């Protein structure tokens, strides 16, 4: 199962390693780490958001191990995608690396390409793709779209967004 976890680290060297050790021990697959260096909690700790994939029975073990090491676990939740949109991409979608375009979204951890339709009418003709992106929340979706916008500009792809989304 995929879970998100908000933890707090003391503002001293070596804390991140301390936090990652229990994940490694439980063979959890770490998908993203958002380390908010610039932020401080009222307790003067540094907030970190993790997204990881692990067996359901490991969740409590990881939590306990983290707390034993002095890492405060603020929240643990199942990582659910609540937002979803379709985006059309037109251009040399395949030749410019469709996998790489998808990876750019997937590696965020908070958004994923969950569906793809592709049409390649001919070698010299423009291809069209319709991708469906799921994201945890509205802000995450917007961030994923900003990433896609940059990738599309680099690859000279026309990105067609839904009318109710801020482009």
């Amino acid at each position, binding site marked *: 199962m995929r879970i998100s976890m908000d933890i707090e680290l003391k503002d001293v060297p070596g804390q991140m390693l301390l936090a990652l050790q229990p994940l490694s021990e439980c063979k959890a697959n770490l998908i993203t780490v958002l380390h908010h260096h610039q932020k401080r909690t009222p307790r003067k700790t540094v907030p970190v958001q993790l997204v990881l994939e692990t067996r359901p029975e490991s969740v409590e073990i990881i939590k306990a191990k983290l707390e034993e090491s002095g890492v405060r676990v603020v929240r643990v939740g199942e990582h659910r995608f609540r937002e979803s949109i379709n985006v059309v991409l037109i251009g040399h979608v395949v030749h410019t690396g469709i996998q790489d375009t998808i990876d750019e979204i997937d590696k965020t951890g908070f958004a994923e390409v969950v569906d793809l*339709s592709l*049409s390649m009418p001919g070698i010299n003709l*423009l291809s069209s793709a319709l991708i469906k992106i799921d994201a945890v929340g509205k802000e995450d979706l917007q961030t994923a779209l900003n990433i896609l916008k940059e990738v599309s500009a680099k690859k000279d792809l026309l990105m067609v967004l839904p009318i109710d989304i801020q482009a």
Partner: protein
Amino acid sequence: MKTVCCSILGFGAIGQGVAEVLLMKKEYLESIGLEVKVVAVVDSKGATVNPQGVDLADCLTRKRISGTVALENITGVEVIRSVDHELVIETTPTNIKTGGAGLQNMLAAFQTGKDVITSNKGPLALNYRELVETAKAAGSNFRFEATVGGSMPVINLVNEVLAGNKVKSIKGILNGTCNYILTRMLEERASYTDILAESMQLGIAEADPKYDVEGIDTACKLVILANAIFGLNATYRDVEVTGITKVTPEALEMAYERGHVIKLIGEVSRERIQVAPRLVPINHPLAVGGTLNVASVDTELAGEITVTGKGAGPIETASAILSDLIAIYGN
């Protein structure tokens, strides 16, 4: 009976449409106490001038037969300066680079204290502030409903009918040519190039379609809305513009299978002015087909108001000009 002496500058499709509508609505105008006397008609080759009123039917026939109304070699600006009248109906072709003759005509009209009604977007998209300030300084009326959405009321709808509402945004399809091309591409599963050729044959797209299909026309209309409704001082250069030339029939079909059409949407708010192809749900009020235009105004009090109508065509555009004329001189 109030007599309004006016000139028609520009006698292409729109100018001729104005002449036809003035003939058609002569009795109606008289019934509301207005006699509209056209004292000069000007095209690119010269003018017909008669301080007693030119014969509009005669002008239309002469234009059809010889390609011009010109009987004298005199320009629009010269007519404005030398012929006594109070209203200039400016329908010369849009020039988005310099503002063209339209800009000179409008400025000259205000400098001589005349009112202006126009369908010409170029000068407004380039020099809105200058035009409005010159008109204000001269105490002239300046109306331009016909510049956005043809017959479809947008500017007057917001500034007059919806007065008092704060407008959050306006989104819509403001170019009938692009709407026609995208509608037909989906219907026929045909390429952009094929449907563009069809549109040119039908006279829906112009010989040089760049202005429409690259989103420039929509961008100019958004600039006018940004200035006239949102009080901004925007120019064409402030608009992010993407046209429809890259849209494929396959993309339209894939979108349709998921309940969407692709439309060239213009969007304006205080924060952004943008033209781009967008996915619009099939049952959305903006998902209109053919050459129709549509605009959805999101307002503070009245919520969302959507209007749709013919965005082009001489008679339709002349309808907006007529409504501006009645707004100035009626009652």
